[in-house]
């Protein structure tokens, strides 16, 4: 456990090599197999009747006579013993919501499933859905989280005293600093509600396999084992009677990291009708019924000395958690994270944060790439720039003033986060140099011929990833990860099968886990097969989330392979009639002096010629299941500084990104190309959060965007060419020193871009504090100043 290796020279195809992805041959040729590609004999398609109103009592559901038998409601499911989804946070004071898979007499957000329709094709199922008449008695709506917590606000859940899932208080001891600090700056900061828009939406095929007597759910998920647990609870079916399989999955980002009501419905229908059924989420369903990420509101104050040294941070934060608590992350993960990670990568002593997970008539909030960090970084990094402005220093200088210095590593911060390693200030210095700040400052002074305003912005964060047991227990999440397990099996022909319970949907695990195994065993990548995402074939895992898979499952793969290596070495030594101590496993062979025996020969001996084995051979053979946890339960801390130069057109409010630099430290990189890919993708999504993506709601809780014509995401021309500079501080606690990196790219862009825009707007004396920073937001800020002048 926690063994540190300096392996990974980058040569060959082991840890550190920029190996091309094994999965691309399949995926880039369009030969993947997604839910939409599956065809089972007799399969029916499902379409959902969804609520067109945000809050209402259902007073009647009329199903046309000719469609009886093809339409099902909660009454049918409940009669069949189906239970609502309950995701109960362990934090004291949490209020429990019950989410029936189909509405039970009441709807609480637009898009909530009310009934399900079954037909031979999706179009026919939609025809039936259009013929179902639901009578809604509309109720007052909570469309805004700040209004939902005011006295007299309509209640989303009737039996609750208010609309707050949970209130938390972190820290304290701020009053004295507040009274005496030389510098005090306050901001109101907000991030918009977003959709995650993976290329492939959700989708599920369910059928009952009569041969193995199992419900088989092939679903576009990040966490098959957790979906199985949730299905078992809601369907009251033993887990042994359920197999959950993730086929190729076209992006998740968190949207596929939960138990979906539609999965429960599909499973139940398949059993009820005894035939395969499929549901595929279409883009409109996704935009309307799954606008479920990122919505935070901060009232935040920073206290500092005259140099900009932070003395304390005080904040109230509201998170719009939507109508229900999602399984397994609950309605409170986001706000619990806000409370514990708002201090960011900085070293200061005084902190108080109150958080509210607010229940509203919107889709339930789901952790999206970066989870609360994107909002937290957006808030905290604006405060750093605000302090810098107040004390008249460059924002990067104030970052250097406050970042945890390398000599203090490992470091426990004000919320007792254990930063494992790294040189945070150096990431800022390199970003300042790489973006060529002085050049931009000169250009700012000279002015642009087209009248646009130049700005440069920075944002620094550290990202806790591969969260450990204590961390998740502390956040009250009803799914605490423990040891991660991997199976490694030498095949009779000397190849290797790896089985992991995490699921790869863009993370390149088929390549990178093979690289880890190759590093230990020397077996060529093409002879290593990863089996993942299938409860029937893999060890239990909480799945792929929280930038955990390389640290946790990669660590388990390495651990299992090491055990295999030792067994191979002993058998190999025996075959060469060498003493076990003189033999080494190297380059896929066991060697003793000039003699060598390949893994293939050893495998043949174990499986086909066991008469040649030593008498004391390990009875476990060439198959190992190993569990792994890093040496620290706090998770790893990767970190980065993003620097961006923008041009703001003050006449039309548009922002062009002129240059974008990421200086990041992922520890040891198993495959730097894959790390780069994660960063590029993350930054693209971060640009969306910063400049484009927002699901607007009207006062009646109606989502005002339902296609990509209204919900804008960045395209080719909006995503900058990102220049990445790697730092490389191995984590002291993990196999090879790796750190989680999957989410990081999406964390800093809104903060860095916001700071750059405000730098540009400085001559106009205005700031923007809300994301996305649309032309309307920027022009309103400018117009406000003009109006006031």
């Amino acid at each position, binding site marked *: 456990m926690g063994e540190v290796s300096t392996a990974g020279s980058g040569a060959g195809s082991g840890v550190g090599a920029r190996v091309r992805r094994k999965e691309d041959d399949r995926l880039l040729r369009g030969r993947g197999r997604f839910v939409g590609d599956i065809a089972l004999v007799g399969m029916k398609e499902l379409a959902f009747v969804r609520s067109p109103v945000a809050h209402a009592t259902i007073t009647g559901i009329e199903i046309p006579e000719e469609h009886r038998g093809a339409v099902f409601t909660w009454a049918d499911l409940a009669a069949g013993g189906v239970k609502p989804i309950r995701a109960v946070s362990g934090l004291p004071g949490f209020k429990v919501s019950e989410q029936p898979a189909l509405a039970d007499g009441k709807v609480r957000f637009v898009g909530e499933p009310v009934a399900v329709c079954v037909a031979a094709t999706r179009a026919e199922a939609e025809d039936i859905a259009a013929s179902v008449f639901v009578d809604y008695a509309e109720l007052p709506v909570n469309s805004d989280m700040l209004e939902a917590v005011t006295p007299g606000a309509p209640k989303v859940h009737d039996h609750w005293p208010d609309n707050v899932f949970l209130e938390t208080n972190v820290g304290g001891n701020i009053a004295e600093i507040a009274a005496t600090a030389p510098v005090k700056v306050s901001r109101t900061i907000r991030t918009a509600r977003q959709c995650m828009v993976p290329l492939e939406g959700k989708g599920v095929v369910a059928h009952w396999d009569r041969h193995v007597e199992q419900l088989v759910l092939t679903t576009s998920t990040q966490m098959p084992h957790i979906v199985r647990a949730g299905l078992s609870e809601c369907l009251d079916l033993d887990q042994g009677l359920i197999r959950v399989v993730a086929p190729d999955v076209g992006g998740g980002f968190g949207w596929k990291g939960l138990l979906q009501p539609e999965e429960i419905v599909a499973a139940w229908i398949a059993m009820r009708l005894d035939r395969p059924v499929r549901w595929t989420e279409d883009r409109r*369903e996704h935009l309307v019924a799954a606008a479920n990420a990122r919505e935070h509101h901060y009232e935040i104050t920073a206290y500092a000395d005259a140099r900009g040294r932070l003395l304390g941070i005080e904040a109230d934060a509201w998170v719009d958690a939507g109508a229900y608590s999602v399984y397994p992350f609950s309605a409170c993960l986001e706000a619990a994270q806000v409370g514990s990670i708002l201090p960011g990568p900085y070293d200061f002593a005084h902190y108080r944060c109150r958080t509210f997970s607010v229940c509203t008539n919107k889709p339930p909030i789901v952790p999206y790439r970066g989870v609360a960090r994107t909002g937290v970084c957006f808030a905290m990094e604006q405060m750093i720039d605000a302090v810098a402005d107040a004390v008249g220093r460059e924002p990067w200088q104030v970052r250097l003033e406050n970042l945890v210095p390398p000599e203090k590593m490992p470091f426990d911060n004000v919320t007792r986060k254990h930063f494992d390693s790294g040189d945070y200030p150096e990431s800022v210095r390199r970003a300042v140099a790489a973006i060529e700040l002085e050049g931009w400052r000169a250009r700012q002074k000279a002015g642009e011929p087209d009248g646009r305003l130049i700005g440069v912005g920075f944002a620094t964060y550290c990202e806790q990833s591969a969260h450990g047991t204590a961390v998740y227990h502390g956040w009250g999440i009803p799914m605490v990860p423990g040891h991660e397990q991997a199976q490694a099996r030498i095949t009779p022909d000397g190849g290797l099968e790896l089985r992991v319970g995490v699921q790869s949907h863009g993370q390149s695990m088929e390549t990178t886990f093979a690289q880890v195994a190759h590093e230990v065993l020397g077996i060529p990548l093409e002879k290593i097969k990863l089996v993942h995402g299938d409860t029937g074939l893999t060890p239990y895992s909480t799945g792929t989330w929280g930038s955990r898979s390389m640290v946790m499952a990669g660590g388990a793969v390495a651990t299992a392979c090491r055990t295999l290596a030792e067994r191979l070495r002993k058998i190999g030594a025996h075959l060469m009639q060498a003493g076990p101590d003189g033999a080494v496993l190297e380059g896929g062979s066991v060697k003793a002096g000039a003699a060598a025996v390949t893994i293939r020969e050893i495998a043949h001996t174990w499986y086909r010629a066991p008469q040649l084995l030593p008498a004391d051979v390990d009875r476990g053979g060439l198959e190992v299941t190993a569990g792994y946890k890093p040496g620290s339960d706090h998770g790893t801390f990767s970190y980065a500084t993003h620097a961006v130069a923008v041009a703001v057109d003050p006449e*039309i409010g*548009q922002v062009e990104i002129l240059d974008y630099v990421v200086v990041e430290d992922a520890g040891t990189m198993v495959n730097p190309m894959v790390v780069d890919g994660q960063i590029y993708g993350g930054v693209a999504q971060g640009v969306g959060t910063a400049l484009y993506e927002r699901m607007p709601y009207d006062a009646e809780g109606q989502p005002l965007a*339902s*296609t990509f014509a209204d919900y804008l995401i960045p395209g*080719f021309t909006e995503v900058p060419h990102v220049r990445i500079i790697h730092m490389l501080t191995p984590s002291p606690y993990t196999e090879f020193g790796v750190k989680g990196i999957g989410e990081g790219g999406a964390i800093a862009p809104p903060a860095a871009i916001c700071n750059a825009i405000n730098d540009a707007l400085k001559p106009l004396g205005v700031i923007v504090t809300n994301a996305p920073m*649309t*032309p309307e937001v920027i*022009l309103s800020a400018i*117009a406000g100043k003009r109006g006031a002048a």
Partner: protein
Amino acid sequence: MKAVDFDYAQPATLDAALELLSREDVMVRPVAGSQSLGPMLNLRLAQPELLVDITRIAELRTIRREGDRLVIGACVTHARLEDGDYPDVTRGVLPSVAAVIAYRAVRNRGTIGGSLAHADPAADWVNVLTALGADVVIAGTGGRRSVPMTDFILGVFETALQPGEIVAEIHVPALSDRARWGYYKVCRKTGEFSHATGAVLIDPARGVQRCVAGATSGKPVVIDGPALFAGGCTEAAMAAHLAGSPAADDPIALRTHTVALKRAIAQVMS
């Protein structure tokens, strides 16, 4: 998000198409590139019983010079206008504007006639062809009629087309050698719908000094004469020209429309 069940016909001649389109026993709609109608079908905002695909009608896919005009068939795609395999009489207006319509994938299928028939105020051709002074030739079972652009677009998604009629041709007048034009649109991102469009044309030989403000939640606003070119493109002036449009009452929208037109004007003045 699947369309309702509908029948589909792909006639080879204009007469056959018009006959189908005149049927009164079914709800019938013409379709060309399907770049606007396609999504509307899938969203079930349009639920026709019969779709008449007019893109196989050869005469609707031709471009030809006729005296001082260029005659463009309704089913000519934006991509073809972008690529320019025709005698451009517009000093680059047609290929330049075509190149900034949505994305190439849309341009490969979307047609000039379909764009006009759809009459989205943010559409490029709706505003540019108005600035150019083009005429639209409409075909129906009763024959053909020619309508100037200013009378063809009547409002948001509203045109002079009567039931059973389709756009057959667009007649674009040739610009003189000294004509200058400008085009500027404000889009949130490349290929997205315009929030404010400015299209301007100065053609002294033909006595044209024309500004068009588009994407105004109504038909294109045409402002003829020298005033705006002579530094008169101010928010106050635009408020008067846009009177009655929601853009006139929203300070940010008004500003954006003014800037779009001002920048289009700057292109011809530079």
